[in-house]
């Protein structure tokens, strides 16, 4: 049971200090989660901390590979308008 961070991560550091298990670490090209340490914040917080502060939709996945913050859920930008954002 562990979350993962994917290549959408912008290395903003917001999640790193919040992790109650010090599972998140700086890496290239982006931050990673140590799956042996991550417990998805069970027993620590009601909400998983990394996924609660991450500003990038789709950058953190749960153990089944589902996005914890799907497109549009954080920015409010309708997904059909996002294709304009590929410059």
């Amino acid at each position: 049971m562990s979350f993962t961070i994917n290549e959408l991560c912008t290395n903003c550091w917001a999640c790193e200090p919040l992790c109650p298990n010090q599972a998140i670490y700086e890496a290239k090209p982006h931050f990673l989660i140590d799956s042996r340490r991550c417990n998805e914040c069970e027993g620590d917080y009601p909400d998983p901390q990394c996924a609660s502060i991450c500003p990038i939709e789709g950058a953190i996945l749960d153990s089944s590979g589902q996005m914890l913050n799907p497109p549009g859920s954080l920015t409010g930008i309708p997904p059909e308008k996002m294709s304009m954002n590929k410059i």
Partner: protein
Amino acid sequence: MTDSIGFGHHQHACTTNNCTTPLAENIREQVQNHPCYSEQAHHYFARMHVAVAPACNIQCHYCNRKYDCANESRPGVVSELLTPDQAVKKVLVVSSEIPQMSVVGIAGPSDPLANPEKTFATFKELAEKAPDLKLCLSTNGLNLPQYVDQIAQYNINHVTITINCVDPVIGAKIYPWIFWQNRRIKGIKAAEILIEQQQKGLEMLLERQILVKVNSVMIPGINDQHLAEVSKIVKAKGAFLHNIMPLLAKPEHGTFYGLTGQRSPTDSELSALQDSCEGEMKMMRHCRQCRADAVGMLGEDRNQDFTLEKIESATVDYQAAMQKRITVQAQITAQMTEKKEQQPHYVQFIPLTSIKRGLTKQKFVHRPILMAVATKGDNLVNEHFGHAKEFLIYEASHTGVRFLRHVKTDLYCHGDDSCGEGETALQRTIHALTGCEVILCARIGYGPWEALVAAGIQPNNDHPYEPIEEAVEKVYKEMIIAGKLDEPLQQQLGA
């Protein structure tokens, strides 16, 4: 009524009791060499931002957290994140090469107080190694109450809070979420918490005699009608400057506002709002909405002259550099004071009746006009038209000369075919100067001269290297004498 912190030529239409009051002497001293706080100072002193704060605890609809482009100039955009050690080294190297450097700020790229360890580690070391530099930070305010004491402890005596609203219903249209007490909170509740923390933080800073500037982003249809109330409230609490900035929102920014067609305010909408709030508090009009890694004078950005590679290999005698800064800056301050004393009232025009001798009195009034000025600093008309990366726009009227805003000519992605739709740089510049009737510059080529005249803008290079306000005033008077600004009085009254 002279408030001499650099708004000296800002004394327009000061006819009611609502007139802005002179700044207290201690505040004047604190800001007289701060380019972001004093309009006069921004002609002479330099600043730099160090980008050590990548994390944020809120989302704003005008911000895209994925953005990083070296050709972009707007807040929140940065090319290279620095560690606190790198940031300190960079400040020491840059401030030894640019002795006019008076201010170091942490303004991002995200929220300094969402990165407290990095932010305060940087400030702590700077306070030790370059105690002459003023420290400031810019925050969204959410974590402000928690860190006010640390801010005071590190002698950070200038704090900017971005306050876009005091009404959570409006706030919910600007901030989709905040991170607060280990949860992501959305909607009106999120805005309520943010507003409460901002206001509490503002009050706590003021209790500790820390100077507070409030930034607001003007978003047409969202908070434009509301910002007068914001201005009134923050002024009543004791913020000393309100900086209303235009929303920057284009689809290519990839922000919510950019992608959903939210428009930016026009220059005249912005000026009108600033004017309407002016009675409430000092308005700041020279803000350049700098990048979080900007370096140099306000109108320029020399960040790219100071790469990490260059910084790390440089050796600096910190003590000698500080001595040089102190000497250079004392000279600048003395020159500024001298200028002020020489011409304490020159912006208060000689009564126009003395100019209109020979004309039948009272038949004419003279309309105010806008003039653009090409300058590269020192408050002088000293830039070649074709070299100007920006123009300063001044209004001349019978009440005096006042600075209104700056206009960038070097729009975001120059050189790219997708930008400007095939307009030449000159056409873009002329378009950006719409509304100006005169452009003052040190020199100008024949081609641009003709093009400007054809567009109804009179180039004028008769006042090279003269102080800006003086030159604007002279040209205005010349135009009055030439009868170019006469308007029948009846027409004015009837309007």
